[in-house]
Every structure is written in structure tokens, then in C-alpha cells.
């Protein structure tokens, strides 16, 4: 029997890796990929609680997160393509038009 804390720590470790990925990488596609990692860490936490509390609601939440992740990826990549047409760059440091 694997204790619940191990799954929680795994999910939190994945979340921290995702945060570091967002902060560290320069390419905007990698920022989107790191966001996927963070959403997956939330999914692991939901499924672990769903199993240990014997409650199906956690799994339902995972479906909604999945839906949101799919929508986010489609919109995010469309934005990246539109941005690349205008600015011809994928570097997040060059996209500073709205920077104060």
C-alpha cells in the first residue's frame, strides 16, 4: 500500500518542475509545455485523493481539467502562430509590446 503523501509529493514535485520550466525557458512553446506539466500534477493529486477518499468526484474533476487543457493548448498554439506571423519570434523576451 503506497501512502497518500507519496503521490502528493510526486504531484508537487511535478508542479515545481513546471514552474521552473515556465521561468527558465525562453521559447514560448516550452512555456506552454510546462503549463501542461503543472496541469498533470493537479490531475495526479485529484486521482490520488479520489482513491484514498473512495470518492468518484476527483476523477470527474480530472476530465474537466483535461478538457480545459485541450482548449488551452489549441488556443495557445493558435496565439503562438498568430504572434509568429506578426513578430517572427518565439522568444518570450522579445514579446514586450504591452510591457510597462
Amino acid at each position, binding site marked *: 500500500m503506497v501512502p497518500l503523501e507519496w503521490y502528493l509529493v510526486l504531484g508537487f514535485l*511535478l508542479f515545481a518542475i513546471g514552474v521552473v520550466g515556465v*521561468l527558465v525557458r525562453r521559447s514560448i512553446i516550452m512555456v506552454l509545455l510546462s503549463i501542461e506539466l503543472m496541469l498533470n500534477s493537479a490531475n495526479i493529486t485529484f486521482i490520488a485523493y479520489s482513491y484514498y477518499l473512495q470518492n468518484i468526484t476527483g476523477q470527474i474533476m480530472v476530465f474537466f481539467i483535461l478538457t480545459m487543457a485541450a482548449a488551452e493548448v489549441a488556443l495557445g498554439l493558435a496565439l*503562438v502562430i498568430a504572434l509568429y506571423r506578426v513578430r517572427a519570434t518565439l522568444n518570450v523576451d522579445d514579446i514586450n509590446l504591452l510591457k510597462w
Partner: protein
Amino acid sequence: MPQILFFYFAGMTVLSAVVAIAAPDLVFSALSLLITFIHIAGLYILLHAEFVAAVQIIVYAGAILVLYLFVLMLFNPKSEQFYLHQQFPVAIFLGLVLFGLMALAAFRTDVLGQKTLLHESVGHTQMVGTALYTDFLFPFEIASFILLVALIGSILLAGRHLERKK
């Protein structure tokens, strides 16, 4: 035996996630993320959520990763020399602090929530479907609307007619 499987899946998940955010080549990162998703699906099977594991492989590894790979092939970015941001020591420090705080919270807090003992068959597709179409019917409809918004929005944003208007 579950412990060994857990350590295999968890170790591979963390390892390939680190490779995914550290690899200079973007295609390599995406493929490494594929390994992460598949091992997370293994963790779901370990937690008796078989349907979610199948959906994870189909949607994440099948749809989302393919979308990323398509966009990557479209741009064909060269692996740059300085792919890491200048702030990366600070970022790694902040990530470690964040992980420490969350792990502390995981070990120090009691499990909140109601323990509702269902049958042995938690995680079976029938129960997921019953809950999804009765208790969560309204969020389900909202989710389909969100997908419609994403569909129309991505066609509008990435479509070619935007340039012609200028």
C-alpha cells in the same frame, strides 16, 4: 509490489519531466514529455482509475502532444545556444522553495474531505459515466461550450484571413 511500481512510474515521470524542461531541442522536449504522460497514465492504473488512464493516453499523448509536434515542425526552430533565461538560478531556487513549502503542507495537514465508502468498483467506467451525466451535467455542458469556444477561437486566430484584412 505496488511500491516498486510506484517508484518506477514516479521516477520515470520526474526524470523525463526534468529532461523535458532542460533539453535544448524542442522536439526532444516534446517527446520526453510524451514519456512523462505515459508514465502518469501508469500511476492512474496503480490508483485504480483505468478509464482516466486510457483518456490520459488518448488525449494527452495522442492529441495534445501531436498538436505540439505539428506546431514545432511548422516553425522548425533551431536549437539555440542560449536557450535558458538569464534568471534561471533564481528560478531554480524559487522552484525548490515552492516544492519545500508544498511538501511541508502535504505532510503537516490532515486529510480533509468526507470519506464516502463506495463499492469496490470505484474507477469503473460505469460509475464515472453515471456521476458525469447526473451530478455533473451542468459542468459537462459548460465544458463542451469551452471546447466550442476553443475551436472557433483557434480557427479565427490562426486562420489566414487575418492578414488579408490589413
